[in-house]
């Protein structure tokens, strides 16, 4: 599944702020500087709103949000 525009907009804005390239689906979002611990907190809030899912606190760790692919898989698992 493709992520909603509001989610990709967040990642693209974050990449611009960090001076990083626009992230592609397999890029490591943390290594490229698109996300860090603080940005991840905001990102999860956007993801919950845009994808209409609830992310439990125990799932808020970088492994679930490492790349756009892992984020898509995670959202699918929450919707399923």
């Amino acid at each position: 599944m493709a992520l909603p525009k509001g989610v990709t907009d967040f990642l693209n804005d974050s990449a611009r702020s960090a001076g990083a390239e626009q992230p592609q689906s397999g890029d490591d979002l943390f290594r490229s500087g698109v996300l860090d611990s603080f940005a991840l907190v905001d990102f999860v809030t956007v993801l919950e709103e845009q994808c209409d899912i609830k992310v439990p606190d125990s799932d808020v760790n970088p492994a679930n949000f490492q790349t756009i692919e892992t984020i898509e898989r995670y959202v699918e698992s929450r919707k399923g």
Partner: protein
Amino acid sequence: MTAFITGTGMSVPEGVVTNEEIAERLGLSAEQIFKSSGIRRRRWAAPGTTTSSLGAAALRFALEDAGISAADVDYLLFGTMTPDRFIPGSASAVQKQSGLGEIPCLDIRATCCNALYGLQLARALVESGAAKNVVVCLAEIQSAWLDLSAASGTISMLFGDGAAALVVSSEKREGALEIIDILLGTDGAYVDDLGIRCPGTEFGTARSHSSEEHSGDYGARMVGQSVILQAARKITAASQKVLERNSLTPDTVRWMVPHQANANLLAQVARSLRFPAEGLVSVLEDFGNTSSASMGIALDTLRRSGRIQTGDYLLLPAFGSGFTWGAGLCRA
């Protein structure tokens, strides 16, 4: 019966330690420390200073502010992570140094949430009629535990020494803050993400698990990413919940007086709650993270600034090792 915070006090050591003085040893630059924490300087106590003596000094100021004497105190709650001794708790030492009567004195070990736990217990004691004047004393001397090497730079840069005390009473007086509600929570799944392992029964003592061979277990451990992620979520949720159950919204709160963990984390929480930055009380720049004492130091600083108006709501959120977290709500 209602419980009020009727007096506050604080005490910090004289020794000011700037980022510039420690940056090189920590493998960081002074500006890096400031940018990642909001801290420019902290106070570190002279060797030999005890945590109880710092707490007793803050307690004296709080009693003076509340207009009561040591003889009027009928319960002492003492919060610290850095006690004078392993046994007994340091509340006994504070009692002796402060000239309190032969009253119940209890140590609490809820780390950076000690102020909230102390206020919740003090409120219960006052509202039940078990006590009239409870002192919640909070103190830390963390500098003695810090590893000042590059390996621990991002932990050691944060912490300062300091103490605060809050008098909780049944009788309201001018400038008092009514304690309306306190919400607390814990998730022990994160017990290893923030804290100090030894000495203890799980990993051992100096006899069974030497500090030479296991030095990492005797120093502060922090999984920074886990702390930030969980703190940001838990503090925000606790704040929302305590406001909701009192039919309030963040825009009705005038002051947020949080545990002073890290300026970036506090800004994140304020942003998540859509809370205006001008109401966020921070003393991080001058005192760093004083753990148990930090919320009390921030509250005392705000009260003495004279900026609190009658009717103002104050939100008191905190997060600490355990993990434990919570939020308190007061009204001026």
